[in-house]
């Protein structure tokens, strides 16, 4: 005991009033390095101990604001810069949608930094040993007693004087607390290092085996391997070694109609519109137009793309040039493509293409309505009402 260094004198009290009074007296007596341990938080204790406002709030504020800034910029970078993604038809930089996450991350950063900061500051990390640990004093104050500790490092500390002082305050028991034997850190002992290496090797080995071997063991493979050729597989049956046979020359698919003008510039002479623009035909044309044409040419063919610049906008269909195109020319463009527009022959059938052309003609007529049309329309609507 004699060679141990004294940490503090610890006094135990029985009632909360005594401890508050003791804390006040200790402050008044001019002791700086003392602490109070109670089984529960006590109102008025901070003031009795003459403590100032804790500075931990600044840690919370700093990290909270950093978290908010970080996550907001992160989302901005993700959605508006790095990888544009339309979510719910909102702009890429959808600030209101970012707020809830910003709020959550602010709280998370603030809370975690407060706890970590408190542990780091008060426990003096990484050293978490404290002389008061494992003492009778600590057991008493964690149950139903109130304790006050005056440290030996205090400028005014004098063992006899402090003992007398604490007795006068009404302490029923006074302990001397000594610093524990300094622990020898055995972090770099060869045995420990070896243990770490074994653990690391085992963990990575097991992970590797699980992910690359165990997970690939097939429980039943009865139908996985069959004696038939899959597409693109080679075969020794045929002379050229290919498993797939080309069709006989001249074969065509059912319903296939050859298009002989592929690649030609202007084969209008030979194409004429076979449809009569009846209501069902126009409805079909409208539906197909809205599906395939409107993404680039706009809902009414004005060239105002629905894709908001994610693909080159198509030109307006109401230009003098296109109005004067014969039907066959437009049919050829839909079938064969032109400039940035690809061929739509695979998506739109021949009849549908003609129906679309009829519908485009309707749109063009509607865009260039004349005064006389208005009268006609009025007459119709009036007659509709009367009907």
């Amino acid at each position, binding site marked *: 005991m004699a060679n141990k260094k004294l940490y503090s004198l610890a006094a135990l009290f029985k009632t909360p009033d005594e401890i508050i009074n003791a804390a006040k007296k200790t402050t008044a007596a001019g002791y700086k390095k003392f602490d109070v341990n109670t089984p529960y938080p006590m*109102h008025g204790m901070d003031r009795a101990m003459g403590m100032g406002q804790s500075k931990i709030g600044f840690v919370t504020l700093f990290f909270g604001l950093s978290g908010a800034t970080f996550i907001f910029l992160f989302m901005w970078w993700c959605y508006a810069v790095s990888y544009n993604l339309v979510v719910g*038809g909102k702009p890429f930089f959808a600030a209101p*949608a970012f707020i809830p996450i910003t709020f959550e991350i602010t709280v998370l950063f603030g809370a975690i930094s407060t706890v970590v900061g408190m542990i780091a500051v008060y426990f003096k990390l990484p050293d978490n040993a404290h002389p008061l640990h494992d003492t009778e004093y600590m057991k008493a104050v964690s149950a139903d007693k109130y304790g006050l500790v005056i440290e030996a490092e205090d400028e005014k500390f004098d063992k006899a004087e402090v003992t007398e002082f604490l007795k006068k305050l009404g302490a029923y028991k006074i302990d001397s607390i000594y610093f524990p034997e300094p622990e020898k850190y055995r972090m770099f002992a060869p045995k420990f290092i070896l243990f770490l290496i074994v653990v690391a090797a085992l963990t990575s080995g097991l992970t590797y085996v699980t992910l690359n071997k165990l997970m690939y063991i097939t429980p039943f493979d009865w139908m996985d391997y069959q004696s038939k050729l899959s597409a693109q597989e080679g075969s020794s049956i045929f002379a050229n070694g290919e498993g797939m046979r080309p069709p006989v020359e001249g074969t065509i698919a059912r319903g296939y109609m050859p298009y002989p003008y592929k690649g030609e510039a202007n084969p209008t002479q030979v194409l004429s519109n076979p449809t009569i623009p009846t209501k069902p035909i126009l409805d079909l044309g409208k539906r197909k137009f809205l599906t395939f044409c409107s993404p680039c040419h706009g809902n009414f063919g004005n060239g105002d793309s629905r894709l908001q610049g994610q693909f080159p906008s198509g030109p307006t269909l109401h230009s003098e040039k296109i109005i004067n195109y014969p039907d066959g020319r437009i049919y050829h463009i839909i079938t064969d493509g032109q400039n940035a527009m690809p061929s739509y022959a695979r998506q739109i059938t021949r009849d549908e293409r003609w129906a679309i052309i009829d519908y485009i003609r309707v749109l063009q007529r509607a865009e260039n309505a004349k005064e006389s049309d208005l009268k006609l329309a009025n007459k119709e609507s009036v007659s509709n009402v009367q009907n």
Partner: protein
Amino acid sequence: MSKIESGYTKENLPLSVQKIGMILAGIGLVLGVAGFLVNSYRASYAYLVSYLFFLSIAVGSLFLVALEYAANADWSTPFRRISEFFAAALPLLLIFVIPLFFNTGKLFLWSHSSYIHSDSMLEAKSAYLNTPFFMVRVIVIILIWCAFYWLITKNSRKQDSVQDQLLTKRNITISVIFMPIFAVTITLIAVDWIMSLESKWFSTIFGVYLFAGVVWSSLAALTLTALILKGKGYLHSAIGKDHFYSLGTLMFAFTVFWGYIAFSQYMLVWYGNLPDETFWYMQRWDGGWKLISLLLIVTHFIVPFFGLLSYEAKTNFKRLKFMSIWILCVHFLDLYWLIIPSMSRTDHIYSFSWIDFVYPIFFVGILILVFNKMTEKTNLVPVGDPKLERGLNFHL
């Protein structure tokens, strides 16, 4: 107990308080009548804003009193009388609602029975939104509030002389009953007076939105009054920093609560992007309102948030006084922002009018007069309350 009783001696407020109240109410009344004569359309909207401001503080104070009883809080007991005095303005709501009843036609589209037949949605809503039922609703709600005010304060006042603990118990029961009733009635007030100005708009969180503002502003009124009275020495001398710190914390909490509710409402409307809902926010964005909307975010959330964040701010009486005045002004701005953009005759374009700022003068004057009148009859500190001693000894 005797120590506490000796700490407070009842004093009447100086005559200047009544004078200030009279002058403000008088100026407000004259200018207010002038406003109605100049532009009765604008004036009825402006009057509604100020009436709801008055209502906020009156009923919010009653809520604070009930909250103290329901939560069995003792730290706020020394202040409770201040809230009780403000709640004494509740019966006046019945008188001041009369100008609004005469102008329902200017305020509410749904009050025109000839109009609603041309609109199927309004017709469907007319079972609820019709003038007689509306008036009955408003009157009944105010009467319920008055009844609870009377029940609670009667016991509280009686306790000053008889010092009976049972009265506190009885008040706790009354307050607990009041809580759900308050929740329903304040929602109805929000729906009837503000949401129905745009009869087709709806937001299910709207009652909570108004509630946040109501409690926030009545807390500010309480803090401001307590600070002034404390400064002049009318309050109990034991009321100190820790009490005001707690008031500041509550104001801070309701700042965040309002921000949370206001944002929740906005975000759902923004995300849903339905024309039936978004138009309400568009009215508050187009035609010059954008600036006021942004101002509201800054003044209602950002400034009080950082202004009340630190411990120093909540214990610095000057700062706290400034923030309470700020909060009262901003709550007025909030109501202004809720109501004035719905004036359809101005095509929702912002135009400044002096009429908007006349009625708050009147109502602030009335609040001061009511408060002063109450201090003459009743102790500023509930001296008979068993919780008072603990409340005065409250330390963090």
